[in-house]
């Protein structure tokens, strides 16, 4: 395999992916509390960007192709944000001060 000149990007992306995989696995044994999920997802996102950009070669593609994935990601973000906003704000205290209805005759 050594005789084949793979582009450097592939080699280095592979190394970085393995390193990030081990880092994420190692960090899972450290008690980070609520930050654990965030840290793990950030590492996952970095890995995903590496794969998409260099293995899938999206970095070298024209803009419309990038747009396809970007708009999918944007829609997904909208879906999750507005869905989660419902659950987080479902039991909020009253939004308006209470006014007694007009007395009836």
């Amino acid at each position, binding site marked *: 395999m050594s005789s084949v000149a793979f582009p450097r990007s592939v080699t280095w992306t592979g190394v970085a992916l393995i390193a990030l995989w081990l880092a994420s696995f190692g960090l899972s044994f450290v008690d980070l509390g609520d930050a654990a999920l965030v840290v793990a997802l950030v590492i996952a996102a970095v890995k995903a960007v590496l794969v998409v950009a260099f293995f899938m070669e999206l970095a070298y593609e024209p803009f419309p192709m990038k747009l396809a994935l970007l708009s999918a990601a944007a829609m997904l973000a909208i879906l999750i944000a507005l869905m989660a906003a419902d659950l*987080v704000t479902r*039991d*909020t*205290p*009253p*939004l*308006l001060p*209470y006014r*007694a*209805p*007009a*007395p*009836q005759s």
Partner: protein
Amino acid sequence: MEFMRTILALPAGASTFADRVDGLHIFVITVTMIMSTLVFVAAAWFTIHYHRKRDDQLTKRLSASAFREGGIIGGILVLFVTWWLIGYRQYIEIMEPPPDAEVVYVDAKQWMWKFAYADGRSSNDTLTVPVGRPVKLVMTSRDVIHSFFVPEFRVKHDVLPGRYVTLWFQATKPGVYPIWCAEYCGVSHSLMRGQVRVLTAAEYEQWKSAGSDVILEADCGTGPGSCGGADLAEIGRAVAERRQCLACHTLDGQPHIGPTWSRLFGSTRELADGRRVVADEAYLTRSMMEPNVDLVAGYRDVMPVYQGVLQPAEAAAIVELIRSLRDGQPPSGVSLPKLEIEAVLDGGTSP
């Protein structure tokens, strides 16, 4: 207003919301009618005025000025946002019950409405309420999603299984109004009809003392004091004993494994994750069914889950008990429940 209501086939308004909601309704529909007619008339006028004269006729290039285009967009946007502002304010009023409302518990199932009142009565399909006083409905479903709809009150809310939702109204005219299920719920969906009986204050008192309606029946449990006679808060006390709630919660303000029920109702609770919620009926029932979801700060997640254990009527009775304790002894927060030996020691050391 009444004239427009007749034209639009709107039923007479019988709640405090009806007039304002109908005001917006008439505004919106009138503008809609005018706009669509205008578009049609403009199209027809252009068609007639610029009728094609020759088969090979050519036309000049005409284009919109950005100014006019922007003006029209801005005008329409202002109109729409105005509708939204008015509508959303009204919506919040409809969806946020006032704190002093009378509570009725609604239990929907295929295909009937069950109502349980604070004094322990219950009824099927007929909801009896006083005129001129806010009434709050705490609603849940036993099977699928239903929707509580009273057209005359201009209120509607889906009734969900596994969750408690609230809705309120204040009737303005005595009378009998239909309740319809507005969310498709199965083969007899269209027969899931009930009625709201709005009584005058005098009639309502008479109804309360007459005790003519069905008393909370089998599903309130079979323990002592669970059915008959006692008011709902009393039933709640019996249920709370039977279900071991009082092993962890106190009724007199003493702190214990769980929060005390005294003065709990209506207070703002700070949760373990930093959110703040008001302890209303929906919150309390949810805390029984899924205690680990809205854990109050300072308490451990040890309470068992009562989902599927407590019957809806039992949950309603416990909530009513907690409501009755809203003006109870203040939670002391300082003194822990003392063992006898500690009390002796305390007595010994203090002068």
